[in-house]
């Protein structure tokens, strides 16, 4: 399966990036490509300076990759019990002039340095992805959050806790099944 993964953090050192990199290396049977959002401009209706009908190149490139993919995974940090502005801004770009997430199967995962592990931001992200401008197909149930992320990885970026790895595998298998059904339903491939 071809999957576009989005790192929801604009930080140099991000546990959500680590988590997605782990997934990319772990699920070798599938092709996971990791996208960074750090250089995306803040969403602005008047970007750049009053021009009405053009999106930043980074946005259109990401949109093209998403269109071409079977599914999307978002690694979502938690800031103030919600989605970080850097990630929200990208979703706004993807729901304004173009709507590449429309009907796209999406899996949400998240890491946080606190024990709750981004649970509240994931709830907000679900609401956002459900809104009519985005209209994505979010994988229900199966919430994967990685709490106390600082101690979750070893030096090679492997998740230390095998129970966590097992649960992630289970979620991912379920997601692929879900994505296939959605894509069939939408007439993709």
């Amino acid at each position, binding site marked *: 399966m071809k999957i576009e993964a989005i790192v929801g953090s*604009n*930080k*140099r050192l991000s546990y959500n990036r680590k988590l997605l990199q782990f997934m990319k290396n772990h699920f070798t049977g599938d092709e996971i490509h990791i996208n960074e959002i*750090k250089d995306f*401009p*803040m*969403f*602005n*209706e*008047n970007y750049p300076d*009053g021009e009405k009908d053009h999106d930043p190149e980074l946005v259109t490139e990401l949109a093209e990759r998403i269109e071409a993919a079977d599914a999307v995974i978002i690694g979502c940090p938690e*800031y*103030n*019990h*919600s*989605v*970080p*502005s*850097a990630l*929200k*801004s990208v*979703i*706004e770009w993807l*729901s304004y002039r173009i709507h590449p997430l429309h009907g796209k199967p999406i899996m949400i995962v998240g890491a946080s340095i606190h024990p709750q592990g981004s649970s*509240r931001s994931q709830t*907000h992200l679900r*609401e*956002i992805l*459900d*809104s009519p*401008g*985005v209209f994505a197909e979010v994988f229900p149930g199966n919430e994967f959050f990685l709490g106390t992320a600082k101690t979750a990885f070893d030096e090679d970026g492997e998740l230390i806790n095998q129970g966590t790895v097992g649960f992630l595998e289970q979620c991912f298998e379920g997601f692929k099944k879900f994505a296939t059904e959605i894509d069939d339903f939408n007439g993709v491939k």
Partner: protein
Amino acid sequence: MKLVAIVGTNADFSYNRKLLEYMKWHFRRAAEIEVLEVKQLPPFNEDLPYSEQTEVWRFNNKINNADGVIIATPEYDHSIPAALKSGLEWLSYKHKTMKEKPVMIVGVSYGTQGTSRAQQQLRQMLLSPDLNSNVLPGNEVLIGNAAKTFDKNGFVTDIKVVHNLEDSFAAFNRFVKSNMRYLEEGDDNMTEPHISSEAKVQFRTGSLKVKEIQQIFNTLPFEIDFIDDTDHFAYYSDKPNREHVRHPSEIGESVEECHPPKALPAVKAIMDSFKLGTKDHVERCLPLNGHKVWINYYAVRDENGRYLGTMEFTGNVGHLVNLVKDGKFDGFPDATSGASKHDDDSEATGPVASESADATTGASEHDEENEDKTE
């Protein structure tokens, strides 16, 4: 009552901005409302060097000094716009600016829901531990059909919406005031002298009543700020028409909190030199508020030379400059030119007097654009 109102979008044209402009006008008798824009702030990023974020510092300061905050949020994808979220992230980062701040949420949307889902999420964000605000309960202002809400002069056209705003604002007014009372009661010991204002303080050179001391400081033609030996803002004189407008809530702030990050290294350098004893005085000339302002920093010491704090002595010297220009001092004997040089910069002497440079030069390197609290 002093409020700030945050426009929750970076769009050039915004109905939410219009709403705040309307509220500023409509509630002008009850509160002084300053409208703030999040589009001036850089997108939040932990990797940005915080000390260079002067706009963030300004934004924090304005909110710090306000009695309450109104946030007007649009709804983007059933949540608040990223531009507003980014502003909130800055406010929760490093400082706890929003902690226990009374907040009122309002919102206008293009559709009929009037930002109800965005407001729900915003409430949850404001209650998270890093923001920790006192959000006004109940009292929802959800304005749909934005395009029909305002007339061409910016007035709200629907009387039901006007009443909704008035009721909610009245509730917020009470909410803010009860919060202020709570803060003032906590502050009582700080603002009232501990001893009776009739009490006399005995100095070597005479005695003064506490109220006389207070009024002498307030009557001086120069304003005084004092940072104590723990680097906290301890006192300012209540002179009318100060060049640097201060607020009692700033008392107790650390030097880091009461200066813009860019100015901080220069301020700290001055204080370090005062503590070490390498300097006793630094002066600066600055245009401020359209005045010729002369600022002097003095090391205040006990008789043994131990540093007690830094006094900032600030005043408009335009009148003096004019007196000189008008020749009011012309023809006065120029008292022993050599001696006066010494008098003027006594701080230029030191253990090795010939080597010590002019102690006042450091001041001009100071970044003036960032002069604290004045703009």
